């Protein structure tokens, strides 16, 4: 048996053994990309196991649209209404993309809703109180993003280096950031009247509002980051088996911190978008957005336990919920009925997901 091994190992591209200049068996293999992956391999991996689930999400969205058309007719099936749905989806869509990374990496971030509030308040305070006439509005943008990122870094440091359970650390941030926002805003809504700022964000490009463009951009960037970069691969590894990732040389703690920073950044962007949408900063902005974001991520097919995430699924999850809201609003149904429907969707989606996971495990 064993005497057959060395030649076959050599086939990997290693040079004959030489005691003076030992060559690792496969170093050359690592640099010669000889084999070519077949198209079917590529297709299989590109679609992953997610294709089946995405079909389910498309069907769910189509069904909602059919219901919308059937019940509200023209009012639902108009371009204007489609834009309304997208604008509704934009803010928490961005937050949900950030959340997808945290959950794929095996964590949870409950603080995003409060961070939306805090970053909007911080930026609007700057605009209403301290911003001199000659300061450019871009400072507001950076402030919102920085506040979000810093909150995320604090979460990440507590969780990765302080070994605080993610649920607790982000719960503390959720409560604390909301309180800080109230202190800063003095519980008042701060109207923003920086025209240059509002004009910049309230224009439409190709008939689509800037906030929708931001959502689209964040979603595309998120998809590339998760599926095509080393950062995304590390995220999946850290969420799938942190010990294996650590023993493979991945800096698990540092990466975990990055994930929460990313989620904080997404919440900061969300805060900025909120500021634009409402032309005001308020400590009440973004309340319960964390739950909507988590629901969209889970419905989309990202495993709550970590190790598998899908940006496309999250986008569908976001669209399904905002379309649902729209259909209910168009039919003058109460928000309470809406919540019941949302709850049902979450349960059904998770049940389907479990079935899917069980099936893929057995094969």
């Amino acid at each position, binding site marked *: 048996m064993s005497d057959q091994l060395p030649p076959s190992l050599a086939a990997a591209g290693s040079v004959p053994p030489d005691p003076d200049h030992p060559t690792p068996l496969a170093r050359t293999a*690592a640099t010669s990309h000889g084999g070519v992956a077949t198209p079917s391999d590529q297709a299989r*991996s590109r679609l992953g196991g997610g294709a089946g689930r995405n079909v389910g999400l498309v069907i769910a969205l189509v069904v909602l649209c059919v219901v919308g058309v059937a019940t509200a007719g023209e009012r639902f099936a108009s371009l204007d209404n489609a834009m309304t749905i997208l604008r509704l989806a934009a803010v928490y869509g961005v937050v949900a993309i950030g959340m997808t990374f945290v959950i794929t990496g095996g964590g949870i971030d409950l603080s995003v809703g409060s961070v939306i509030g805090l970053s909007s308040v911080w930026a609007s305070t700057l605009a209403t109180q301290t911003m001199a006439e000659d300061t450019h509005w871009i400072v507001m943008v950076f402030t919102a993003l920085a506040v979000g990122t810093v909150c995320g870094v604090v979460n990440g440091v507590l969780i990765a280096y302080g070994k605080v359970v993610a649920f607790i650390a982000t719960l503390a941030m959720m409560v604390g950031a909301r309180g800080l926002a109230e202190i800063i805003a003095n519980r008042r809504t701060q109207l923003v009247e920086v025209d240059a700022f509002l004009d910049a964000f309230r224009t439409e490009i190709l008939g689509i509002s800037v906030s929708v463009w931001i959502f689209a951009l964040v979603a595309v960037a998120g998809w590339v980051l998760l599926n095509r970069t080393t950062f995304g691969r590390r995220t999946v590894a850290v969420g799938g088996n942190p010990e294996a990732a650590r023993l493979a040389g991945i800096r698990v703690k540092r990466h975990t911190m990055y994930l929460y920073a990313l989620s904080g950044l997404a919440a900061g962007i969300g805060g900025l978008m909120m500021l634009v949408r409402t032309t005001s900063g308020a400590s009440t902005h973004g309340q319960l957005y964390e739950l909507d974001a988590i629901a969209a991520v889970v419905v989309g097919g990202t495993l709550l336990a970590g190790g598998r995430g899908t940006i496309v699924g999250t986008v569908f999850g976001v669209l399904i919920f905002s379309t649902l809201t729209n259909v209910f609003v168009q039919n003058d149904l109460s928000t309470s009925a809406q919540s019941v429907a949302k709850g049902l969707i979450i349960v059904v989606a998770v049940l389907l997901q479990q079935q899917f996971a069980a099936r893929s495990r057995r094969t």
Partner: protein
Amino acid sequence: MVTVDPQPPVEPSTDAAPLLQMRGIVKHFSGVRALDGVDLDVRPGEVHCLLGQNGAGKSTLIKVLAGAHRPDAGTVEWNGRTANLSNPVAALATGIATMYQELDVVDGLTIAENVYLGHELAAGGLTRRRAAHTRTRELLARLGHDELPPHREVGNLSAAGKQVVSMARALSHDARLIIMDEPSAVLDSEEVANLFRVVRQLTAAGVAVLYISHRLEEIRQIGDRITVLKDGRTVATGLPVATTSTPDLIRLMTGRTVEQVFPPRRTVAADAQPLLHVEGLGLRGVFADVSLTVRAGEVVGLAGLVGSGRSEILETIYGARRATAGRVEVAGTPLRPGSVTAAVQAGIGLAPEERKSQGLLLDEPVYRNVTLSTFGRFAKGPMLDERAERSVARDQLEALELRPADPERSARTLSGGNQQKLMLARWLVHGCRVLLLDEPTRGVDVGARAEIYGLIHALAEAGNAVVVVSSEIDEVLGLADRVLVIAEGRVLHSGPADQIDEHRVLDLVMEGSAA
């Protein structure tokens, strides 16, 4: 000596009425035939050994008996009547108790609560804690572990301790047939002796034991008859342990002849470059003053019992634990202590003992597992080049004869031997020159073991430095050029492998532990 024909199953002798009789058991999992016609007879009071490579269907068969899986076809008779094994409760009621290989204990509960989990001693809905404690203490005493308090939380126990709890639970059911799935995997030799004593007590009382183990020597010691599974079928059943030769068994399991010998080693040139140098390494409370040098082309073995500090030494060299004393050098360059990343960058690779929990992303495809520590190298900037990853992984899988060499399969579907090869592939792609292998053949069947041995030697001959830890002393002595004997965290002996034998190692280990 009985000659064995692998094709038709050998008819069991009928001098005792079987307790359990399985015929033509078939079980599919979404198109895959896990069991494809299994026959098995177990008599009262015998130790019936179940042999087979990983993936032969042993685990599935056990789960059928435990009521966890329902077979798609076939009959199961118990004492001559059709048995009801439709769920775990029914299986227990029938009299079949199972000790699973994956320790099935609940960490947050006490020993007594675990032992009586699912059949709590209760009166009027209230658990009878005192009775449970008394009975648990009796069971533990029977297992030679009266030192374990029933109120101790199971999460605080070692793997061997958890195995004892699992055994106590099986005993608590007063079963007529106890299934033991690799019970010795986490036990050291003294624990195994305890286990065998209990097995003999059970069989003397008429209880049958279905014993699954990869260790042929154990089967020789404890077994009465053997059934061999291959590819989900019974290839031989009712073979008497005493008269069936090891080569015959291996041939039945693998379908080919495998000499279970260690290939001869080339001598390492005296001037070969020292790749790994460890000086006075210590970890407070675990081990102290470990020094060793491994040259290019050399295999160094660490022999010792479970808990002697062997695995911790490897993990400390690797930086997964931060050393409290000493230093590690790779090819003359000192290593930053307590940093796995630094060790990996310096070219050290660790294949951990617990491959599934410490090594693999089970649901990710094989190629991503192969490139887990190198994917950054295939990236253009931050962007991954999966095509390059796949092709490199495929080349390496083929070189290591990992079958099937399919980079897209999920790691979960691989057998133990193939998972071990996957770990080696990862470090070979990385270009590691120092390989630390912790129990490289744990959970690997006999046929695949010879392959792993050959592979380890081929790795050394290609100029790598290899450190092997194993509980099986013959494995360490057979594989290594030099051996360190370790007990209680101290190095008791260090020298060439051909100048020490198994008895001497055992003597040293026993003395060391007694001291």
